[in-house]
């Protein structure tokens, strides 16, 4: 089985600080980590390989420091790592990123399963996996909480807002992973030492034979213009009535505000 896992390096921070001048994320002193849901994707790839045999290639698009995350993915059990990096690829939105990743997957060739995390915790769109699936013409199953592969088909459970949907799809397939899918293992020191010695392949837009209009800033029809903290409203709403009436009113309010 040939598996590709696409990962993104994201800022490791719970305390998000917005730069008041650029209105973007203040990235000073922020360490890059593998997007948490991508770790579930890597773990599932490793489990599939343990069960069915095969090879896992981990791919990421980003600047050179992305190599740290690729090495960590190797230490977690991926066999090969490819960095997609070039100045021309920078400034990409999800459409341009998805195009570039799909060029890489086509170059790898004959891939059965592509795994993504359901969404990245910084941008939060969840679009890149589906965009890659569309570019490749692969079937896609998003928000998977369970995956089995048998006789050329994927059997997956999808965690949706109102329940669980079971889907069967013929390979090749793109899957996006939720945190319910598995509990990611730790990289062991032996695997870390081995991964540190492995070579990471770097491909740029020329290696990928990209259409220059579809990559980087030029290939990005969307742009982030501002990031801001939502204004907090400290208004207090006192509910009156009997305990049953208050409980009913509270539930209705939570439903109306789409909090339940």
């Amino acid at each position, binding site marked *: 089985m040939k598996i590709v896992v696409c990962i993104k390096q994201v800022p490791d921070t719970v305390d998000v600080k917005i730069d008041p001048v650029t209105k973007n994320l203040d990235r000073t002193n922020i360490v890059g980590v593998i997007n948490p849901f991508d770790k579930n994707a890597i773990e599932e790839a490793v489990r599939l390989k343990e069960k069915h045999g095969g090879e896992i290639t981990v791919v990421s698009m980003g600047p050179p420091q992305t190599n740290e995350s690729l090495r*960590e993915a190797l*230490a977690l059990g991926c066999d090969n790592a490819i960095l997609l990096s070039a100045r021309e690829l920078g400034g990409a939105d999800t459409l341009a990123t998805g195009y570039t990743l799909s060029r890489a997957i086509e170059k790898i060739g004959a891939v059965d399963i592509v795994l993504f995390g359901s969404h990245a915790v910084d941008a939060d769109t969840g679009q890149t996996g589906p965009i890659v699936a569309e570019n490749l013409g692969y079937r896609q199953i998003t928000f998977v909480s369970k995956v089995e592969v048998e006789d050329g088909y994927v059997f997956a459970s999808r965690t949706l807002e109102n329940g669980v949907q079971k889907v069967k799809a013929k390979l090749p397939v793109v899957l996006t992973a939720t945190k319910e899918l598995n509990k990611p293992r*730790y990289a*062991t*020191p*032996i*695997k870390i030492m081995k991964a*540190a010695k492995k070579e990471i392949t770097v491909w740029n837009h020329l290696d990928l034979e990209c259409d220059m209009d579809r990559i980087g800033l030029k290939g990005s029809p969307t742009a982030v213009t501002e990031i801001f903290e939502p204004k907090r409203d400290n208004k207090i709403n006192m509910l009156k009535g009997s305990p049953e009436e208050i409980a009913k009113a509270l539930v209705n309010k939570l439903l109306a505000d789409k909090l339940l």
Partner: protein
Amino acid sequence: MLFEFTEEQKMIQKMVKEFTENEIAPLDEKMDNEGFNYELWDKIKENGFLGIPFPEQYGGSGGDPITSAITIHEIAKGSASVALTLDAHWLAADTILHHGTETQKEKYLYKAATDTIFAFSLTEPMAGSDAAGIQSTAVLTGDEYVLNGTKAWCTNGGVSGVYIILAKTDVNIGFKGISAFIVEEGTPGFTVGKKENKMGMRGSNTTELVMNDVKVSKENLLGKEGDGFKIAMIALDGARISIGAISAGLAESAMKIAKNYANQRVAFGKPIAKLQAIQFMIANMAIGIRATELMTFDCAKMKAQGMRHTKDAAMVKVFGAEMAMQSCKDAIQILGGNGYSKDYHVERYLRDAKLLEIGEGASEVLRMLVGTTELNS
């Protein structure tokens, strides 16, 4: 900056930090109450921690002393007990790595690197700092040594599969008569005695060992007869680097709690962090932690390069242990009444820290070592 870790070292540091935060630190209070946690140690073994310093050919990950120090340092930030257990395991297994025959290394190092905890036992009820005063004997009878005696304060006693036991093959020549033996758990006559009810480091198991005509093959003599004291002293040099790492990690945990508390606790109309008395205590902690870290990693580098580091390791331990004690005391003081409560953890850190001034070379003995070395140089 004196130190730049390699990429591998940084990756291992990251992994150990994550594992400690998620798996070890949440159990430290529980271990203080209930003792050694077998389930946690199964996870520690499964994730390859035991083998970090050992060569790949024996199932280890081929790390160097700096990687070992990084590991102990990060674990100590979550639990000093767990860090101490790992330090004692490495101290014991290291004796086989450095002094063992190829047969002994093949027989025992794979176990040490993967799934078996080791213990090292020199101290006896009547001989601690006066190590040459041990009374356990080992008498050669045919192809076997017969061991008799009682050991005390054995870290990892009762949870180990293999013990490195120091006993006298010649009772008439003081420390030159001490030899080292590899004794497997379950050997007839070898029993784990009383478990110590300790002040701190309660997640680490410490017991007596009782030897009653324990027959050990000649093949299990480590080095030559009479090498025991030298083997022990070399092993303790390495272990003292670990104590430096534990001191720095433990003090950092205490400082973190003290800082958070000082920034929030309001007295006389402002957070107590605005008061110089608090600032000075935090400053002393920060200075002491940084100095201990630098000394520890510098000493680890000396060991990695094969340099003699006896005096330096002693200095690391004396300084680090006393710094950790003072930092934990100050952390309690900063928290005031709350510092006196178990709920705020710093009292447990102080109880853990006290061991660092005693075990693996009491501060007084180490001052003698450093003082005489200095005066004779």
